[in-house]
């Protein structure tokens, strides 16, 4: 009981730290493009991060709980419980160390490294599900690349249909709603197949209906708008409104993926405590996901505004059409990864999306040196968190845990 309680507390603290730091990165483009102000960003993030975590967070949480280390290969359930606890402590400690030294850190990479670390310390290399690790690693490489492609294509589509048309404002009113309808479509599809557990066909039908209804509703809302200044400014104003929706989409997707970083090990401890079969098909209780979502929301509420002010005010280079493309791409990739149960870094996906818009000539300057930080995060965070987790696990065992 005490480990479950302590695990719950540490998991909650990690969730708070995710809320305080990572959420700012996922909402920064919207704040920077002045689509939402800091207060709106905090409210949107707190509510939708919680919703995303509670509704869509189970898949990735399952991956962290039993996908990285094969629980069946650890004979002692208590050792597994202590290991999960060690992974949480290691993640929290590594985030603190990395933040102190200003190193690029990803909570996702930390928790994956830490879970693998305790597994190796507990029962050797064979206990780690290396195929899963390879898939996760591939997803880390693919998510920024996919972010790049989707944002590039989205921005080029906005260009082709709206910015390059003879009447950009009229085209924005005509085609803009369907871009946003696309976001609702993906959310609806994910909801139907993952939460309602219906078939892909049903999901597709519902998603199409949602696409048509939401697109038509926004079309009607925009229909009466008139040009007040130059056409491009008016197009940006339309996308400014639509970026509020994509900001919600990003917050929802981020909550769905990142809640697992804090709550995945807690779910593992809970399963042992309840005497459930470790490797079995036991769904993560929604209450645990809600605790993680609440932690993220608390982090956002307490420190989010300060961090968003720092991050958002530094980004002035993005217009709303560019910000929309980045947000849409990030949220789509991260939500898709969440549905597939893949823990990916939202920040790295945003980086890929920004580079995508940069390659489409949409941003005045993108600093490519930053890509080095992604590599450092892969090559430094995973082994560091793994070694730290091993040490903590060994110490806990030595202390008679």
């Amino acid at each position, binding site marked *: 009981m005490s480990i479950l309680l302590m695990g719950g507390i540490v998991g909650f603290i990690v969730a708070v730290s995710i809320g305080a730091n990572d959420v700012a990165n996922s909402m920064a483009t919207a704040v920077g493009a002045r689509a939402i102000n800091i207060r709106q960003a905090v409210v949107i993030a707190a509510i939708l991060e919680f919703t995303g975590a509670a509704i869509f967070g189970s898949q990735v949480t399952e991956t962290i709980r039993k996908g990285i280390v094969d629980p069946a290969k650890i004979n002692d359930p208590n050792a597994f419980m202590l290991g999960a606890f060690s992974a949480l402590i290691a993640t929290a400690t590594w985030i603190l160390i990395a933040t102190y030294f200003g190193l690029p850190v990803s909570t996702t990479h930390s928790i994956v490294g830490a879970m693998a670390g305790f597994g190796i310390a507990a029962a050797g290399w064979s206990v780690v599900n290396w195929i899963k690790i390879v898939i996760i690693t591939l997803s880390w490489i693919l998510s920024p690349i996919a972010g790049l492609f989707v944002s590039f294509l989205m921005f080029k589509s906005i260009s082709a249909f709206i910015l390059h048309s003879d009447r950009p404002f009229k085209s924005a009113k005509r085609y803009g709603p369907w871009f946003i309808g696309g976001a609702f479509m993906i959310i609806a599809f994910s909801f139907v197949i993952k939460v309602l557990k219906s078939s892909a066909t049903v999901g597709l039908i519902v998603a199409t209906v949602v696409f048509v209804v939401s697109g038509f509703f926004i079309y009607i809302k925009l229909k009466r708008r008139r040009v007040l200044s130059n056409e491009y400014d008016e197009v940006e104003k339309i996308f400014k409104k639509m970026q509020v929706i994509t900001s919600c989409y990003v917050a929802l997707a981020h909550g769905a993926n990142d809640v697992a970083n804090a709550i995945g090990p807690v779910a593992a401890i809970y399963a042992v405590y309840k005497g459930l079969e470790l490797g079995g098909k036991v769904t993560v209780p929604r209450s645990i996901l809600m605790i993680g979502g609440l932690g993220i929301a608390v982090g956002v509420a307490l420190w989010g505004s300060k961090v968003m002010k720092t991050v958002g005010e*530094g980004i002035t280079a993005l217009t709303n059409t560019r910000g929309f493309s980045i947000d849409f791409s990030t949220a789509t990739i991260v939500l898709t990864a969440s549905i597939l149960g893949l823990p990916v870094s939202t920040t790295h996906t945003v980086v890929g999306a920004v580079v995508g818009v940069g390659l489409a000539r949409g941003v*005045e300057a993108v*600093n490519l040196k930053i890509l080095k*930080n992604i590599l450092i995060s892969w090559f430094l965070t995973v082994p560091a968190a793994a070694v730290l987790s091993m040490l903590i696990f060994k110490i806990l065992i030595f202390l008679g845990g």
Partner: protein
Amino acid sequence: MAIFKKLLPNVKVIEPIIKHAQIIEKAMMKFPELFRAYFGFKNIDEIVKEITNLEREADKIKERLKSSLDNYHLTPFERSTIVLYIHNQDKIIDLIEDTSKLLYLNNFEMPEELKNMLMELVEEVKNAVDVFEDGVRRLERIFISDFSTREIEAEKFEMEKVEGLEDKVDEITLKIGRWIYSNKENYNPIDLMFLRNLALTVSEIADVSQNVVDMIPSILKK
């Protein structure tokens, strides 16, 4: 957390180019006043000083832009083209400053006919710089439109106006040249040489503006 500040640095390309062009226009606006004061044998120190300060301000913008662009920055423009472009744009304000300082060297009683021709030249060069500045300002709109063909064509159309004005400037310069040679017996040769040099420097402002405008399509390509 700081990843975004690094990812999207405060490096601007279009804004400094526009600001630089606006300073050129501001300096050029001083020319009619400067020439009127010169023709009236009044003190031109203040106006020349203002132009010199504007030239320095423009120089700083040019240097900042050049140093902010490195190979690690992904920008919608070719770095080398931008550097070459801003270097040429800076030549305009250099010529404006050169002209203002040239007026310190010599002054003599000029007939009204010559003064009118010189003022006409100054006005036409000012118009050319105005159109050039308008065109540079449109770069922002082109960027916002994601380099739409429609906006680029509109820019080209506007820029053709500079060519027309430059032809007019050449005509007036030629007229001044003819006046100089037809009056070689009546004036001090040094004064006439000075006058020729002055007219050519002023008309060169329009020439260089035309050259810079011709470079705009190349910076829009990548």
